[in-house]
């Protein structure tokens, strides 16, 4: 090799290295792009506020959310529920509890429901999808059979309307907050499973898998070490988006009376369900938790969409 071409090559590398100084991996690069995206920033801001409220809610709430302090003033049977006042900014709920305090404290339950049910769906879905994807991509005839069986089960789950599925699970397990989490989680299992499996099957045909195979790397190692890390991006985006739908679905289940029947622990979906009876007297009682749910879901959706854009290699500049 002549020294001249060597130098040119070296020069090219130096300049290339300089441009790349900050970027390390696909993920670092993606987060950098998320940070530069104004929509994502709005989403993140909403979520930060939401999480903050969920954490410190019980301490900043002006009253106890379970105290019937306005019991004397509320006559819900006769259509009297006092509205906002200086002491109670959002007024009382139908049983005379401070609405603002219930909203602030309820954020935590709502966040927990969203996160836990998404985690349930993600864990089971990723497990099923991961096994099916690895089997389909690398397992030969037996693998294809395993993949077929797993995916047909997933298809059956997917064929059921999600609300019907959730309602049946909730009915089976009895109404409670745990039931809501499980029901919402199970509904999202097939989505995660299909997504991860599809991504893994697509990756299994890529050149780097062929190259790794040509070096004698074992199949399990290829599946876990090579294919899986390349298939995670869509799953993570989906998880973010599922947080939004999980909160909404959990609220829907609570609304249908399948959530925690005990209204002592406030939860936005339950508050919404209880407020429906007094929609004509005090529509605010329904609007406040509904707004909370909508804004939070919006936050997750904005962030999820921004992450989808950031992680999509086709949109990279």
């Amino acid at each position: 090799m002549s020294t001249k071409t060597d130098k040119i090559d070296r020069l090219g590398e130096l300049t290339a290295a300089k441009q790349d100084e900050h970027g390390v991996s696909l993920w670092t690069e993606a987060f950098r792009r998320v940070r530069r995206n104004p929509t994502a920033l709005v989403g993140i801001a909403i979520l930060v506020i939401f999480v903050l409220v969920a954490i410190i809610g019980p301490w900043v709430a002006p009253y106890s959310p379970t105290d019937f302090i306005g019991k004397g003033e509320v006559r819900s049977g006769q259509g009297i529920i006092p509205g906002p006042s200086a002491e109670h900014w959002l007024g009382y709920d139908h049983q005379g509890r401070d609405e603002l305090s219930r909203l602030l404290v309820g954020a935590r339950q709502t966040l927990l429901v969203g996160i836990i049910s998404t985690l349930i769906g993600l864990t089971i879905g990723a497990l099923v999808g991961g096994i099916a994807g690895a089997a389909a991509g690398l397992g030969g005839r037996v693998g294809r059979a395993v993949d077929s069986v797993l995916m047909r089960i997933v298809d059956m789950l997917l064929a059921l309307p999600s609300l019907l599925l959730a309602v049946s699970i909730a009915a089976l397990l009895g109404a409670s907050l745990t039931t809501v989490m499980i029901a919402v989680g199970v509904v999202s299992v097939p989505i995660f499973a299909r997504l991860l499996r599809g991504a893994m099957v697509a990756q299994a045909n890529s050149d780097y898998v062929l190259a790794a195979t040509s070096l004698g790397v074992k199949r399990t190692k290829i599946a876990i070490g090579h294919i899986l890390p390349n298939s995670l991006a869509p799953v993570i985006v989906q998880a973010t988006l599922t947080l939004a739908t999980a909160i909404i679905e959990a609220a829907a289940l609570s609304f249908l009376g399948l959530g925690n029947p005990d209204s002592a622990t406030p939860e936005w979906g339950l508050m919404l369900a209880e407020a429906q009876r007094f929609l004509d007297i005090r529509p605010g009682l329904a609007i406040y938790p509904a707004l909370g749910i909508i804004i939070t879901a919006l936050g997750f959706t904005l962030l999820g969409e921004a992450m989808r854009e950031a992680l999509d290699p086709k949109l990279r500049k």
Partner: protein
Amino acid sequence: MPLLDVKDLSVTFARRGQRTVRAVDGVSFSVEAGEVVGLVGESGCGKSVTSLALMGLLPKQRGVTIGGSAMFGDTDLLKTDERTMRDIRGRDVAMIFQDPLSSLNPVIPIGIQVTEVLTRHRGLTGAKATAEATDLLNRVGIPDPTRRLKEYPHQLSGGMRQRALIAMAVACAPKLLIADEPTTALDVTIQAQILELLRGLVRDSGTALVMITHDLGVVAGMCDTVNVLYAGRVVESARRKPLFADPRHPYTTGLLGSVPRLDAGKGERLHAIRGSVRDVLPWPDGCAFAPRCDRRVDACVGEPPALVEGVHRHAYRCVNPESRTVEVPS
């Protein structure tokens, strides 16, 4: 005994409702230890399928049939079970691919991809593996290897990536290296460097190299023996010098003629082989090259021409071969 002896290799792809494709149709060649053997031909002639078949990388599905034998020492690479094959791949036989960017995993640092091979076949782990990987990158001419090991494929230049892939392929000092168009995705100056690197590796380690290429320049610069493939069969096979000095098969002369030359006269048109690879005659019906051949005679059609062995193991599959020495004036 040669290091690798491929006899009558054939690969057919059959799909329901479509006609069966014989991608490789009875290819035979042998590779001695330390030798560089070229497989030359245009796209679709069966070069890559040959290499994948040898590596056992063709998909094991219904419809893919592999025939013939490829003796590598005492093992037949075509009939070895997958488990043994996994041990052979990377340790005894390794492969370098065409596109270095897509052949490296984009989300994993180079270092992990290199050490993975070392762990798999040589049992090296931790600091020992890292030290060996650094040494490997150094050997393939990647400057500042310690830093490069931590980087991701997209942070390396095209040449660097191909060097990294070569490092992974030679990590376990394989006896045989198959390079499938290793320089096609690179620009010309980098091509020269990569070829130089491969030449050096072959010279220093005694590794045999099967060079798959469509580039006759690469062949002229690297190969000891050349096999020219057309439509899945070897049409001419010779040592490098006789092939370039005295090509016999019209396809070989056509390939040689279509290389642009610096000493060509001004305004001289570049020679092209007429037709395209699709205009083939199935081998059983005659010479597959006949529809595109300028020297076609009646004997070309009817039955397939046999491989004629000339002097110095110069073999060609043609009933009306070119000849420099015997030029009959009309």
